[in-house]
Protein backbone atom coordinates (compact mmCIF):
# COMPACT_ATOMS: atom_id res chain seq x y z
CA UNK A 1 0.00 0.00 0.00
CA UNK A 2 2.61 2.53 1.09
CA UNK A 3 4.93 1.63 -1.77
CA UNK A 4 2.15 2.09 -4.29
CA UNK A 5 1.24 5.44 -2.77
CA UNK A 6 4.86 6.58 -2.97
CA UNK A 7 5.06 5.56 -6.64
CA UNK A 8 1.96 7.52 -7.58
CA UNK A 9 3.13 10.43 -5.43
CA UNK A 10 6.44 10.57 -7.28
CA UNK A 11 4.69 10.35 -10.65
CA UNK A 12 2.35 13.25 -9.99
CA UNK A 13 5.15 15.06 -8.14
CA UNK A 14 7.34 14.88 -11.25
CA UNK A 15 4.55 16.51 -13.27
CA UNK A 16 4.19 19.26 -10.66
CA UNK A 17 7.95 19.72 -10.76
CA UNK A 18 7.91 20.17 -14.55
CA UNK A 19 5.15 22.77 -14.23
CA UNK A 20 6.96 24.47 -11.36
CA UNK A 21 10.15 24.77 -13.42
CA UNK A 22 8.22 26.90 -15.91
CA UNK A 23 7.01 29.21 -13.16
CA UNK A 24 10.52 29.45 -11.76
CA UNK A 25 12.29 30.30 -15.03
CA UNK A 26 9.75 32.98 -15.92
CA UNK A 27 9.86 34.42 -12.43
CA UNK A 28 13.64 34.54 -12.39
CA UNK A 29 13.96 36.50 -15.63
CA UNK A 30 10.72 38.51 -15.64
CA UNK A 31 9.98 38.92 -11.92
CA UNK A 32 6.38 37.96 -12.58
CA UNK A 33 4.11 35.03 -11.82
CA UNK A 34 2.63 33.82 -15.06
CA UNK A 35 -1.04 33.07 -14.50
CA UNK A 36 -1.32 31.70 -18.04
CA UNK A 37 1.25 28.99 -17.36
CA UNK A 38 -1.37 26.34 -16.61
CA UNK A 39 -2.84 26.90 -20.06
CA UNK A 40 0.51 26.04 -21.67
CA UNK A 41 0.29 22.71 -19.85
CA UNK A 42 -3.32 22.30 -20.91
CA UNK A 43 -2.35 23.20 -24.50
CA UNK A 44 0.39 20.55 -24.49
CA UNK A 45 -2.04 17.85 -23.38
CA UNK A 46 -4.88 18.93 -25.67
CA UNK A 47 -2.62 19.31 -28.71
CA UNK A 48 -1.03 15.92 -28.09
CA UNK A 49 -4.54 14.44 -27.97
CA UNK A 50 -5.48 16.38 -31.10
CA UNK A 51 -2.45 15.32 -33.12
CA UNK A 52 -2.81 11.64 -32.18
CA UNK A 53 -6.61 11.47 -32.20
CA UNK A 54 -7.69 13.74 -35.06
CA UNK A 55 -4.58 13.96 -37.24
CA UNK A 56 -3.62 10.31 -36.56
CA UNK A 57 0.06 11.14 -36.24
CA UNK A 58 2.36 8.61 -34.59
CA UNK A 59 3.08 9.24 -30.94
CA UNK A 60 6.59 10.70 -31.16
CA UNK A 61 5.91 13.43 -33.76
CA UNK A 62 2.58 14.23 -32.12
CA UNK A 63 4.25 14.78 -28.77
CA UNK A 64 7.05 16.79 -30.34
CA UNK A 65 4.62 18.98 -32.28
CA UNK A 66 2.49 19.56 -29.18
CA UNK A 67 5.56 20.59 -27.20
CA UNK A 68 6.85 22.93 -29.88
CA UNK A 69 3.43 24.54 -30.42
CA UNK A 70 3.10 25.09 -26.72
CA UNK A 71 6.45 26.87 -26.72
CA UNK A 72 5.27 28.98 -29.66
CA UNK A 73 2.07 29.88 -27.82
CA UNK A 74 4.12 30.97 -24.81
CA UNK A 75 6.32 33.13 -27.05
CA UNK A 76 3.22 34.76 -28.55
CA UNK A 77 1.79 35.45 -25.09
CA UNK A 78 5.02 37.19 -24.16
CA UNK A 79 5.38 39.16 -27.40
CA UNK A 80 1.77 40.28 -27.68
CA UNK A 81 0.90 40.67 -24.03
CA UNK A 82 3.92 41.39 -21.93
CA UNK A 83 6.91 42.58 -23.91
CA UNK A 84 6.18 46.29 -23.49
CA UNK A 85 4.57 46.26 -20.05
CA UNK A 86 6.42 48.01 -17.25
CA UNK A 87 8.29 45.50 -15.06
CA UNK A 88 6.99 47.13 -11.89
CA UNK A 89 3.36 47.23 -12.91
CA UNK A 90 2.43 44.02 -11.14
CA UNK A 91 -1.33 44.44 -11.32
CA UNK A 92 -1.15 44.81 -15.10
CA UNK A 93 1.04 41.70 -15.35
CA UNK A 94 -1.39 39.68 -13.25
CA UNK A 95 -4.35 40.87 -15.31
CA UNK A 96 -2.66 40.34 -18.68
CA UNK A 97 -1.46 36.83 -17.90
CA UNK A 98 -4.86 35.98 -16.41
CA UNK A 99 -6.54 37.36 -19.55
CA UNK A 100 -4.15 35.50 -21.85
CA UNK A 101 -4.88 32.32 -19.91
CA UNK A 102 -8.62 32.80 -20.29
CA UNK A 103 -8.18 33.50 -24.01
CA UNK A 104 -6.11 30.32 -24.44
CA UNK A 105 -8.73 28.33 -22.57
CA UNK A 106 -11.40 29.82 -24.81
CA UNK A 107 -9.36 29.05 -27.93
CA UNK A 108 -8.89 25.44 -26.85
CA UNK A 109 -12.61 25.17 -26.19
CA UNK A 110 -13.43 26.46 -29.66
CA UNK A 111 -10.79 24.69 -31.75
CA UNK A 112 -9.95 21.56 -29.79
CA UNK A 113 -13.35 20.75 -28.37
CA UNK A 114 -15.00 20.52 -25.01
CA UNK A 115 -14.62 16.76 -24.52
CA UNK A 116 -12.39 15.08 -22.02
CA UNK A 117 -9.76 13.34 -24.14
CA UNK A 118 -7.74 10.21 -23.40
CA UNK A 119 -4.73 10.20 -25.75
CA UNK A 120 -2.69 6.98 -26.07
CA UNK A 121 0.10 6.20 -23.60
CA UNK A 122 3.64 6.39 -25.02
CA UNK A 123 4.34 2.65 -24.83
CA UNK A 124 1.06 0.83 -24.39
CA UNK A 125 -1.33 0.64 -21.48
CA UNK A 126 0.09 -2.52 -19.88
CA UNK A 127 1.48 -1.73 -16.42
CA UNK A 128 4.77 -3.22 -15.36
CA UNK A 129 5.44 -4.92 -12.09
CA UNK A 130 8.60 -4.17 -10.15
CA UNK A 131 8.62 -6.66 -7.29
CA UNK A 132 5.34 -6.13 -5.48
CA UNK A 133 4.70 -2.73 -7.09
CA UNK A 134 2.74 -2.08 -10.25
CA UNK A 135 4.02 0.87 -12.23
CA UNK A 136 2.38 2.19 -15.37
CA UNK A 137 4.84 2.64 -18.20
CA UNK A 138 3.74 6.25 -18.58
CA UNK A 139 5.00 6.95 -15.06
CA UNK A 140 8.47 5.88 -16.17
CA UNK A 141 8.22 8.20 -19.19
CA UNK A 142 7.25 11.02 -16.85
CA UNK A 143 10.21 10.40 -14.56
CA UNK A 144 12.50 10.12 -17.57
CA UNK A 145 11.05 13.32 -18.99
CA UNK A 146 11.75 15.19 -15.79
CA UNK A 147 15.36 13.97 -15.68
CA UNK A 148 15.92 14.81 -19.36
CA UNK A 149 14.58 18.31 -19.01
CA UNK A 150 16.57 18.93 -15.84
CA UNK A 151 19.77 17.84 -17.55
CA UNK A 152 19.02 19.91 -20.67
CA UNK A 153 18.17 22.93 -18.57
CA UNK A 154 21.36 22.55 -16.58
CA UNK A 155 23.44 22.43 -19.77
CA UNK A 156 21.57 25.37 -21.25
CA UNK A 157 21.88 27.60 -18.20
CA UNK A 158 25.45 26.65 -17.38
CA UNK A 159 27.23 26.21 -20.69
CA UNK A 160 25.55 28.40 -23.31
CA UNK A 161 25.70 32.10 -23.92
CA UNK A 162 21.93 32.33 -23.88
CA UNK A 163 21.78 30.58 -20.51
CA UNK A 164 24.42 32.88 -19.10
CA UNK A 165 22.48 35.91 -20.28
CA UNK A 166 19.32 34.56 -18.67
CA UNK A 167 21.14 34.04 -15.38
CA UNK A 168 22.60 37.52 -15.58
CA UNK A 169 19.17 39.06 -16.12
CA UNK A 170 17.79 37.11 -13.18
CA UNK A 171 20.57 38.33 -10.89
CA UNK A 172 20.44 41.96 -11.86
CA UNK A 173 18.29 43.09 -14.69
CA UNK A 174 19.75 46.58 -14.87
CA UNK A 175 23.40 45.54 -14.70
CA UNK A 176 22.76 42.91 -17.36
CA UNK A 177 21.38 45.60 -19.65
CA UNK A 178 24.53 47.67 -19.11
CA UNK A 179 26.64 44.64 -20.10
CA UNK A 180 24.93 44.54 -23.47
CA UNK A 181 22.48 41.76 -22.73
CA UNK A 182 18.99 42.22 -24.08
CA UNK A 183 16.65 41.51 -21.14
CA UNK A 184 13.72 41.29 -23.54
CA UNK A 185 15.37 38.42 -25.38
CA UNK A 186 16.17 36.57 -22.16
CA UNK A 187 12.60 37.12 -20.97
CA UNK A 188 11.13 35.87 -24.24
CA UNK A 189 13.41 32.85 -24.15
CA UNK A 190 12.26 32.12 -20.60
CA UNK A 191 8.68 32.09 -21.83
CA UNK A 192 9.54 29.74 -24.68
CA UNK A 193 11.32 27.37 -22.28
CA UNK A 194 8.40 27.50 -19.87
CA UNK A 195 6.01 26.80 -22.73
CA UNK A 196 8.04 23.85 -24.00
CA UNK A 197 8.53 22.27 -20.58
CA UNK A 198 4.93 22.98 -19.57
CA UNK A 199 3.63 21.58 -22.86
CA UNK A 200 5.74 18.47 -22.38
CA UNK A 201 4.33 18.09 -18.87
CA UNK A 202 0.83 18.32 -20.33
CA UNK A 203 1.59 15.76 -23.03
CA UNK A 204 3.17 13.38 -20.52
CA UNK A 205 0.29 13.70 -18.08
CA UNK A 206 -2.57 13.43 -20.57
CA UNK A 207 -2.48 9.64 -21.13
CA UNK A 208 -2.46 9.09 -17.37
CA UNK A 209 -5.01 11.64 -16.19
CA UNK A 210 -6.91 12.61 -19.38
CA UNK A 211 -7.00 16.17 -20.69
CA UNK A 212 -9.67 18.83 -20.80
CA UNK A 213 -9.69 22.47 -21.89
CA UNK A 214 -10.73 23.60 -18.42
CA UNK A 215 -8.07 22.13 -16.12
CA UNK A 216 -5.23 24.58 -16.88
CA UNK A 217 -5.79 26.91 -13.94
CA UNK A 218 -5.87 23.96 -11.59
CA UNK A 219 -2.56 22.63 -12.85
CA UNK A 220 -1.18 26.15 -12.58
CA UNK A 221 -2.11 26.41 -8.93
CA UNK A 222 -0.46 23.06 -8.21
CA UNK A 223 2.67 23.93 -10.15
CA UNK A 224 2.88 27.30 -8.46
CA UNK A 225 2.43 25.65 -5.07
CA UNK A 226 5.33 23.34 -5.92
CA UNK A 227 7.48 26.29 -7.02
CA UNK A 228 6.74 28.17 -3.80
CA UNK A 229 7.20 25.17 -1.52
CA UNK A 230 10.62 24.51 -3.05
CA UNK A 231 11.56 28.17 -3.31
CA UNK A 232 10.75 30.13 -6.43
CA UNK A 233 13.71 31.00 -8.60
CA UNK A 234 15.61 27.73 -8.32
CA UNK A 235 14.93 24.79 -10.66
CA UNK A 236 16.14 22.32 -8.04
CA UNK A 237 13.71 23.84 -5.55
CA UNK A 238 10.95 23.29 -8.09
CA UNK A 239 11.79 19.58 -8.20
CA UNK A 240 11.90 19.24 -4.44
CA UNK A 241 8.67 21.20 -4.10
CA UNK A 242 6.95 19.11 -6.76
CA UNK A 243 7.92 15.86 -5.09
CA UNK A 244 6.93 17.06 -1.61
CA UNK A 245 3.60 18.22 -2.98
CA UNK A 246 2.96 15.03 -4.99
CA UNK A 247 3.85 12.78 -2.06
CA UNK A 248 1.75 14.66 0.48
CA UNK A 249 -1.14 14.66 -1.96
CA UNK A 250 -1.05 10.97 -2.65
CA UNK A 251 -0.57 10.19 1.06
CA UNK A 252 -3.65 12.30 1.79
CA UNK A 253 -5.58 10.54 -0.97
CA UNK A 254 -4.49 7.12 0.25
CA UNK A 255 -5.04 7.53 3.97
CA UNK A 256 -7.61 10.32 4.33
CA UNK A 257 -9.86 10.96 1.35
CA UNK A 258 -9.23 11.60 -2.30
CA UNK A 259 -11.73 14.47 -2.25
CA UNK A 260 -9.59 16.54 0.08
CA UNK A 261 -6.17 15.80 -1.43
CA UNK A 262 -6.23 19.19 -3.17
CA UNK A 263 -7.04 20.87 0.10
CA UNK A 264 -3.95 19.27 1.62
CA UNK A 265 -1.63 20.51 -1.10
CA UNK A 266 -3.09 24.02 -1.12
CA UNK A 267 -2.96 24.20 2.66
CA UNK A 268 0.71 23.27 2.31
CA UNK A 269 1.12 26.22 -0.06
CA UNK A 270 -0.52 28.60 2.41
CA UNK A 271 1.60 27.32 5.30
CA UNK A 272 4.83 27.71 3.37
CA UNK A 273 3.81 31.19 2.21
CA UNK A 274 3.09 32.17 5.80
CA UNK A 275 6.01 30.52 7.58
CA UNK A 276 8.78 30.50 5.00
CA UNK A 277 7.88 32.62 1.98
CA UNK A 278 11.28 32.01 0.37
CA UNK A 279 10.48 28.27 0.18
CA UNK A 280 12.27 25.22 1.53
CA UNK A 281 15.40 25.69 -0.57
CA UNK A 282 15.17 29.38 -1.43
CA UNK A 283 17.15 32.20 0.07
CA UNK A 284 15.34 35.24 1.40
CA UNK A 285 15.95 38.18 -0.90
CA UNK A 286 16.67 41.53 0.68
CA UNK A 287 13.71 43.77 0.02
CA UNK A 288 14.32 46.84 -2.08
CA UNK A 289 12.64 49.93 -0.71
Amino acid at each position, binding site marked *: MLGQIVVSGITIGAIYALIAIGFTIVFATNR*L*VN*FAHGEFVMAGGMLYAYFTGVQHLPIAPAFLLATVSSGLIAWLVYQ*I*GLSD*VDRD*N*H*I*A*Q*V*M*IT*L*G*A*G*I*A*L*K*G*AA*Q*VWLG*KDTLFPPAFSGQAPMSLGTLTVSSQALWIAGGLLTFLLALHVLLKYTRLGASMRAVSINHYAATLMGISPGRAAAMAFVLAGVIGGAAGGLLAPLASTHYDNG*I*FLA*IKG*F*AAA*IVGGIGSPLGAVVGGLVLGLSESLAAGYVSS*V*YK*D*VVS*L*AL*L*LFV*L*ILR*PQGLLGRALP*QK*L
Partner: protein
Amino acid sequence: MSSAIDRRLTLLLLVLLPILAAITDNNFHKSILVFGVINAISAVGLCLMLGLAGQISLGQAAFFGIGAYVTSNLATRAGLEPALAIVLAACCAMALGWAISRPLSRLHDHYLAMATLAFGTVMYIGFANGRDWTGGLDPGMSMPKLTMFGQDLSSMNALFAVSWIALTLSVFVANNIAGHRIGRTLRAMKMSAPAAASVGIDVVQAKAFVFAIGALLTGLAGGLYAYVARSFNAGVFGIGYSIELLMMVVIGSLNRVSGAITGAFIITVLPILFDRFEDYRTLVFGVTMVLIMKFMPTGLVDGLFSLGARLLSGRRR
Protein backbone atom coordinates in the same frame (compact mmCIF):
# COMPACT_ATOMS: atom_id res chain seq x y z
CA MET B 1 -10.92 57.60 -5.38
CA SER B 2 -13.50 59.81 -3.72
CA SER B 3 -12.70 62.78 -5.91
CA ALA B 4 -15.51 65.24 -6.54
CA ILE B 5 -16.01 63.96 -10.08
CA ASP B 6 -16.11 60.38 -8.87
CA ARG B 7 -18.73 61.23 -6.25
CA ARG B 8 -20.89 62.99 -8.81
CA LEU B 9 -20.57 60.12 -11.27
CA THR B 10 -21.44 57.60 -8.58
CA LEU B 11 -24.49 59.61 -7.61
CA LEU B 12 -25.52 59.81 -11.24
CA LEU B 13 -25.23 56.04 -11.59
CA LEU B 14 -27.19 55.46 -8.41
CA VAL B 15 -29.98 57.72 -9.67
CA LEU B 16 -29.88 56.23 -13.14
CA LEU B 17 -30.34 52.64 -11.98
CA PRO B 18 -33.88 52.96 -10.53
CA ILE B 19 -34.93 54.92 -13.61
CA LEU B 20 -33.66 52.07 -15.79
CA ALA B 21 -35.46 49.58 -13.59
CA ALA B 22 -38.66 51.58 -13.85
CA ILE B 23 -38.65 51.81 -17.64
CA THR B 24 -37.86 48.14 -18.30
CA ASP B 25 -41.02 46.08 -18.15
CA ASN B 26 -39.24 42.87 -19.13
CA ASN B 27 -38.60 40.65 -16.12
CA PHE B 28 -35.44 39.16 -17.64
CA HIS B 29 -33.89 42.57 -18.17
CA LYS B 30 -34.87 43.53 -14.67
CA SER B 31 -33.17 40.45 -13.28
CA ILE B 32 -29.99 41.42 -15.15
CA LEU B 33 -30.17 44.81 -13.46
CA VAL B 34 -30.55 43.16 -10.06
CA PHE B 35 -27.56 40.88 -10.65
CA GLY B 36 -25.62 43.89 -11.89
CA VAL B 37 -26.36 45.73 -8.66
CA ILE B 38 -25.28 42.70 -6.62
CA ASN B 39 -22.05 42.40 -8.58
CA ALA B 40 -21.52 46.12 -8.12
CA ILE B 41 -21.62 45.68 -4.35
CA SER B 42 -18.91 43.01 -4.55
CA ALA B 43 -16.94 45.16 -6.97
CA VAL B 44 -17.05 48.17 -4.65
CA GLY B 45 -15.58 45.92 -1.96
CA LEU B 46 -12.75 44.74 -4.21
CA CYS B 47 -12.24 48.29 -5.45
CA LEU B 48 -11.46 49.35 -1.89
CA MET B 49 -8.98 46.50 -1.53
CA LEU B 50 -7.24 46.85 -4.87
CA GLY B 51 -7.81 50.43 -5.93
CA LEU B 52 -7.43 52.14 -2.60
CA ALA B 53 -5.09 49.84 -0.68
CA GLY B 54 -3.34 47.96 -3.50
CA GLN B 55 -4.25 44.55 -2.08
CA ILE B 56 -5.10 42.17 -4.91
CA SER B 57 -7.45 39.31 -4.12
CA LEU B 58 -8.35 36.37 -6.34
CA GLY B 59 -10.39 34.74 -3.58
CA GLN B 60 -13.42 37.02 -3.43
CA ALA B 61 -15.76 34.24 -4.57
CA ALA B 62 -15.12 32.55 -1.22
CA PHE B 63 -16.55 35.54 0.66
CA PHE B 64 -19.44 35.68 -1.78
CA GLY B 65 -20.07 31.99 -1.14
CA ILE B 66 -19.86 32.38 2.64
CA GLY B 67 -22.40 35.19 2.39
CA ALA B 68 -24.79 33.05 0.35
CA TYR B 69 -24.43 29.83 2.32
CA VAL B 70 -24.53 31.34 5.80
CA THR B 71 -27.60 33.32 4.79
CA SER B 72 -29.38 30.28 3.42
CA ASN B 73 -28.49 28.08 6.39
CA LEU B 74 -29.54 30.72 8.91
CA ALA B 75 -32.78 31.36 7.08
CA THR B 76 -33.82 27.79 6.32
CA ARG B 77 -32.44 25.92 9.33
CA ALA B 78 -32.52 28.48 12.11
CA GLY B 79 -35.59 30.25 10.73
CA LEU B 80 -34.02 33.67 11.10
CA GLU B 81 -35.54 36.82 9.64
CA PRO B 82 -33.95 37.20 6.14
CA ALA B 83 -32.53 40.67 6.76
CA LEU B 84 -30.89 39.50 9.96
CA ALA B 85 -29.55 36.39 8.22
CA ILE B 86 -27.96 38.49 5.48
CA VAL B 87 -26.36 40.88 7.96
CA LEU B 88 -25.01 38.03 10.07
CA ALA B 89 -23.68 36.29 6.96
CA ALA B 90 -21.92 39.45 5.85
CA CYS B 91 -20.36 39.67 9.32
CA CYS B 92 -19.18 36.05 9.00
CA ALA B 93 -17.55 36.90 5.69
CA MET B 94 -15.95 39.94 7.32
CA ALA B 95 -14.53 37.81 10.13
CA LEU B 96 -13.15 35.37 7.58
CA GLY B 97 -11.62 38.21 5.58
CA TRP B 98 -9.96 39.57 8.69
CA ALA B 99 -8.72 36.12 9.73
CA ILE B 100 -7.29 35.28 6.30
CA SER B 101 -5.55 38.62 6.00
CA ARG B 102 -3.48 38.19 9.15
CA PRO B 103 -1.33 35.28 7.92
CA LEU B 104 -1.16 36.75 4.40
CA SER B 105 -0.05 40.19 5.52
CA ARG B 106 3.57 39.57 4.54
CA LEU B 107 2.60 38.92 0.94
CA HIS B 108 1.97 41.39 -1.84
CA ASP B 109 1.28 41.50 -5.56
CA HIS B 110 1.85 38.16 -7.32
CA TYR B 111 2.27 36.20 -4.14
CA LEU B 112 -0.88 37.64 -2.63
CA ALA B 113 -2.76 36.94 -5.85
CA MET B 114 -1.69 33.31 -5.86
CA ALA B 115 -2.24 32.82 -2.12
CA THR B 116 -5.76 34.24 -2.33
CA LEU B 117 -6.37 32.12 -5.42
CA ALA B 118 -5.35 29.05 -3.40
CA PHE B 119 -7.60 30.19 -0.55
CA GLY B 120 -10.51 30.62 -2.97
CA THR B 121 -9.88 27.17 -4.43
CA VAL B 122 -9.79 25.53 -1.00
CA MET B 123 -13.06 27.23 -0.09
CA TYR B 124 -14.61 26.19 -3.40
CA ILE B 125 -13.66 22.56 -2.78
CA GLY B 126 -15.24 22.93 0.65
CA PHE B 127 -18.43 24.38 -0.86
CA ALA B 128 -18.63 21.63 -3.49
CA ASN B 129 -18.03 18.80 -1.04
CA GLY B 130 -19.62 20.00 2.20
CA ARG B 131 -22.93 18.81 0.90
CA ASP B 132 -24.68 18.73 4.28
CA TRP B 133 -24.46 22.49 4.51
CA THR B 134 -24.22 23.63 0.93
CA GLY B 135 -25.96 20.99 -1.17
CA GLY B 136 -22.71 20.76 -3.15
CA LEU B 137 -22.83 20.87 -6.92
CA ASP B 138 -25.78 18.68 -7.64
CA PRO B 139 -28.88 19.37 -5.62
CA GLY B 140 -27.55 22.78 -4.65
CA MET B 141 -29.47 25.11 -2.41
CA SER B 142 -32.98 26.40 -2.71
CA MET B 143 -34.24 29.38 -0.80
CA PRO B 144 -37.65 30.61 0.34
CA LYS B 145 -38.96 33.93 -0.90
CA LEU B 146 -37.46 37.09 0.52
CA THR B 147 -39.71 38.61 3.16
CA MET B 148 -39.18 41.52 5.50
CA PHE B 149 -41.47 42.32 8.40
CA GLY B 150 -44.06 39.99 6.92
CA GLN B 151 -43.97 41.71 3.52
CA ASP B 152 -43.38 39.55 0.46
CA LEU B 153 -40.40 41.09 -1.35
CA SER B 154 -39.84 38.42 -3.98
CA SER B 155 -41.02 40.43 -6.99
CA MET B 156 -38.22 41.70 -9.22
CA ASN B 157 -39.07 45.31 -8.37
CA ALA B 158 -38.81 44.67 -4.65
CA LEU B 159 -35.57 42.70 -5.06
CA PHE B 160 -34.15 45.54 -7.09
CA ALA B 161 -35.12 48.05 -4.42
CA VAL B 162 -33.49 45.99 -1.67
CA SER B 163 -30.26 45.46 -3.63
CA TRP B 164 -30.19 49.11 -4.68
CA ILE B 165 -30.43 50.21 -1.03
CA ALA B 166 -27.60 47.82 -0.17
CA LEU B 167 -25.48 49.24 -3.01
CA THR B 168 -26.16 52.79 -1.89
CA LEU B 169 -25.09 51.89 1.64
CA SER B 170 -21.95 50.20 0.31
CA VAL B 171 -21.05 53.25 -1.76
CA PHE B 172 -21.63 55.45 1.28
CA VAL B 173 -19.30 53.26 3.34
CA ALA B 174 -16.69 53.15 0.59
CA ASN B 175 -16.69 56.91 0.04
CA ASN B 176 -16.41 57.56 3.73
CA ILE B 177 -13.51 55.19 4.11
CA ALA B 178 -11.76 56.72 1.11
CA GLY B 179 -12.21 60.26 2.37
CA HIS B 180 -11.36 59.57 5.96
CA ARG B 181 -8.06 59.19 7.78
CA ILE B 182 -8.09 55.43 7.26
CA GLY B 183 -8.41 56.02 3.52
CA ARG B 184 -5.26 58.11 3.49
CA THR B 185 -3.56 55.40 5.55
CA LEU B 186 -4.52 52.80 2.96
CA ARG B 187 -3.37 55.00 0.08
CA ALA B 188 -0.03 55.49 1.79
CA MET B 189 0.25 51.74 2.20
CA LYS B 190 -0.50 51.22 -1.48
CA MET B 191 2.33 53.53 -2.50
CA SER B 192 4.86 51.91 -0.23
CA ALA B 193 4.20 49.66 2.73
CA PRO B 194 7.65 50.19 4.33
CA ALA B 195 7.35 53.96 3.97
CA ALA B 196 3.88 53.86 5.51
CA ALA B 197 5.21 51.77 8.38
CA SER B 198 8.04 54.22 8.92
CA VAL B 199 5.62 57.05 9.64
CA GLY B 200 3.81 54.99 12.22
CA ILE B 201 1.09 53.26 10.21
CA ASP B 202 0.26 49.77 11.42
CA VAL B 203 0.41 48.09 8.02
CA VAL B 204 -0.75 44.67 9.21
CA GLN B 205 -3.81 46.18 10.83
CA ALA B 206 -4.57 48.36 7.82
CA LYS B 207 -4.41 45.32 5.53
CA ALA B 208 -6.66 43.33 7.84
CA PHE B 209 -9.10 46.24 7.91
CA VAL B 210 -9.38 46.54 4.16
CA PHE B 211 -9.66 42.78 3.71
CA ALA B 212 -12.43 42.73 6.30
CA ILE B 213 -14.35 45.53 4.60
CA GLY B 214 -13.92 43.98 1.16
CA ALA B 215 -15.12 40.65 2.51
CA LEU B 216 -18.03 42.32 4.30
CA LEU B 217 -19.34 43.94 1.12
CA THR B 218 -18.79 40.80 -0.95
CA GLY B 219 -20.50 38.72 1.73
CA LEU B 220 -23.44 41.13 1.72
CA ALA B 221 -23.68 40.70 -2.04
CA GLY B 222 -23.58 36.93 -1.55
CA GLY B 223 -26.43 37.04 0.94
CA LEU B 224 -28.54 39.07 -1.47
CA TYR B 225 -27.60 36.72 -4.28
CA ALA B 226 -29.01 33.79 -2.31
CA TYR B 227 -32.42 35.46 -2.17
CA VAL B 228 -32.39 36.71 -5.74
CA ALA B 229 -31.22 33.50 -7.41
CA ARG B 230 -33.20 31.32 -4.96
CA SER B 231 -31.65 28.17 -6.34
CA PHE B 232 -27.92 27.91 -6.88
CA ASN B 233 -25.07 25.44 -6.55
CA ALA B 234 -21.42 25.58 -5.59
CA GLY B 235 -20.39 26.19 -9.21
CA VAL B 236 -21.25 29.88 -8.80
CA PHE B 237 -18.55 30.35 -6.18
CA GLY B 238 -15.57 29.04 -8.17
CA ILE B 239 -12.43 30.78 -9.38
CA GLY B 240 -14.37 32.15 -12.35
CA TYR B 241 -16.35 34.56 -10.21
CA SER B 242 -13.21 35.86 -8.50
CA ILE B 243 -11.65 36.57 -11.88
CA GLU B 244 -14.83 38.24 -13.13
CA LEU B 245 -14.86 40.50 -10.08
CA LEU B 246 -11.27 41.48 -10.70
CA MET B 247 -12.22 42.24 -14.29
CA MET B 248 -15.07 44.47 -13.16
CA VAL B 249 -12.78 46.57 -11.01
CA VAL B 250 -9.97 46.75 -13.53
CA ILE B 251 -12.20 47.36 -16.55
CA GLY B 252 -14.09 50.11 -14.80
CA SER B 253 -11.39 51.99 -13.03
CA LEU B 254 -8.91 51.22 -10.33
CA ASN B 255 -9.34 54.66 -8.85
CA ARG B 256 -13.06 55.26 -8.84
CA VAL B 257 -16.05 53.77 -7.06
CA SER B 258 -18.12 54.80 -10.07
CA GLY B 259 -15.70 52.79 -12.20
CA ALA B 260 -16.30 49.67 -10.14
CA ILE B 261 -20.06 50.05 -10.61
CA THR B 262 -19.69 50.66 -14.34
CA GLY B 263 -17.36 47.70 -14.65
CA ALA B 264 -19.78 45.50 -12.76
CA PHE B 265 -22.53 46.31 -15.23
CA ILE B 266 -20.27 45.85 -18.24
CA ILE B 267 -19.14 42.41 -17.05
CA THR B 268 -22.70 41.43 -16.11
CA VAL B 269 -24.16 42.45 -19.46
CA LEU B 270 -21.24 41.50 -21.72
CA PRO B 271 -21.68 37.69 -21.50
CA ILE B 272 -25.35 38.14 -22.39
CA LEU B 273 -24.43 40.21 -25.43
CA PHE B 274 -21.83 37.60 -26.36
CA ASP B 275 -24.42 34.86 -25.95
CA ARG B 276 -24.91 34.38 -29.67
CA PHE B 277 -21.18 33.60 -29.98
CA GLU B 278 -21.74 30.81 -27.43
CA ASP B 279 -18.46 28.91 -27.64
CA TYR B 280 -16.37 31.97 -28.44
CA ARG B 281 -17.42 33.72 -25.24
CA THR B 282 -14.42 32.70 -23.14
CA LEU B 283 -12.01 33.54 -25.94
CA VAL B 284 -13.51 36.99 -26.53
CA PHE B 285 -13.57 37.64 -22.78
CA GLY B 286 -9.88 36.84 -22.40
CA VAL B 287 -8.81 38.84 -25.44
CA THR B 288 -10.87 41.83 -24.26
CA MET B 289 -9.15 41.63 -20.89
CA VAL B 290 -5.66 41.68 -22.43
CA LEU B 291 -6.56 44.52 -24.81
CA ILE B 292 -8.00 46.72 -22.07
CA MET B 293 -5.00 46.16 -19.83
CA LYS B 294 -2.61 46.94 -22.67
CA PHE B 295 -4.26 50.04 -24.04
CA MET B 296 -6.10 51.42 -21.02
CA PRO B 297 -4.07 50.27 -18.03
CA THR B 298 -6.04 52.45 -15.61
CA GLY B 299 -9.37 51.05 -16.73
CA LEU B 300 -11.95 51.64 -19.40
CA VAL B 301 -13.67 54.57 -17.67
CA ASP B 302 -10.42 56.44 -17.01
CA GLY B 303 -9.20 55.54 -20.49
CA LEU B 304 -12.30 57.02 -22.11
CA PHE B 305 -11.97 60.07 -19.87
CA SER B 306 -8.41 60.79 -20.94
CA LEU B 307 -9.31 60.03 -24.55
CA GLY B 308 -12.15 62.53 -24.34
CA ALA B 309 -9.93 65.09 -22.69
CA ARG B 310 -7.33 64.63 -25.41
CA LEU B 311 -9.92 65.05 -28.16
CA LEU B 312 -11.36 68.14 -26.53
CA SER B 313 -8.01 69.83 -26.01
CA GLY B 314 -7.03 68.89 -29.54
CA ARG B 315 -10.09 70.66 -30.88
CA ARG B 316 -9.39 73.75 -28.85
CA ARG B 317 -5.94 74.04 -30.34
